[in-house]
């Protein structure tokens, strides 16, 4: 039995310590993802906290045939979605780019962060599919399970997302080229 499964079993038995140790491996990764999904830094923090609380509460329902990260991401996406509509209605048009947590959390560099472009260009679900594929290295089957979609939907939308970002990357390269040549 792997170390992770041992911790999961201990958590199922009610060990908070085992669960805390288990989530140490995932908290930064999940928080990074939630920052791309939530409207503000505070929302991302709340979503992370809710994700771990729900995961601990319902850990008995975890099926080891799936990766633990797949299960956690599924909970995280639901929590982020629950926080999102209320905030949008509350803030209305006051919401602007400055409230985007990515604005604060992306280190300043010469080039624009492609995930910001992805957030602008792609729908939430396609964005999530791209993230899970390229950052989390998840299989199509796992992504489909996280997003509660079919494998074919996942494949098609990964391709669409990829095309959109490749076009963006090419535009960026053209801009850089034309700037450097005056």
């Amino acid at each position: 039995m792997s170390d992770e499964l041992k911790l999961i079993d201990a958590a199922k038995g009610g060990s908070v310590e085992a669960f805390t140790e288990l989530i140490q491996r995932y908290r930064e990764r999940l928080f990074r993802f939630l920052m791309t999904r939530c409207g503000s830094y505070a929302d991302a923090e709340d979503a992370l906290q809710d994700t771990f609380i729900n995961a601990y509460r319902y850990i008995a329902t975890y099926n080891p045939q799936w990766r633990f990260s797949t299960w956690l991401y599924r909970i995280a996406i639901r929590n982020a979605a629950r926080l999102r509509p209320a905030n949008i209605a509350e803030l209305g048009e006051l919401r602007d780019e400055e409230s985007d947590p990515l604005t604060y959390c992306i280190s300043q560099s010469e080039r624009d962060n492609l995930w910001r472009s992805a957030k602008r260009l792609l729908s939430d679900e396609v964005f999530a599919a791209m993230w899970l594929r390229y950052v989390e290295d998840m299989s199509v089957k796992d992504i489909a399970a996280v997003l509660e979609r079919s494998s074919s939907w996942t494949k098609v939308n990964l391709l669409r997302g990829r095309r959109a970002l490749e076009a963006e990357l090419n535009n960026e390269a053209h801009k850089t080229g034309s700037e450097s040549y005056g």
Partner: protein
Amino acid sequence: MDKLATRLREDAADIDAQVSAELDHRIRVSLHNVSPERPKAVPRSSRPFSLWWASSLTGAAVALVVIALLNLDRTGPVSEPVAVNAVQQIVIPDLNLNVEAAMLTSPLAEELANLQADFRRAEMAVREDVEIDF
């Protein structure tokens, strides 16, 4: 790994996602206030398994008896099928065609005279065209 995949991975790593000590503390405290829910056990039927077998067998036996009884009633002589003519004769009712002439009012009588005149003219025209004697 292709250019896009590399770039996406690098850019994701550029997002600073340090969980603050305060958030970490909040999560730990919340977890201590929660306990894992036990999976709800599927309620087991209070009836013993043998009861299902007994009821199934009884049902099957009753069905067989009913089928046998229904078939026993049909053991009598089978009547010959009645021959039916493919083309049935058409019975024409005997109509009494000797009807009395209606009493026509003046405009209707005039209309009838006109119609009869029209009919005669039409008859003459047909005779001339076809040269057939009716």
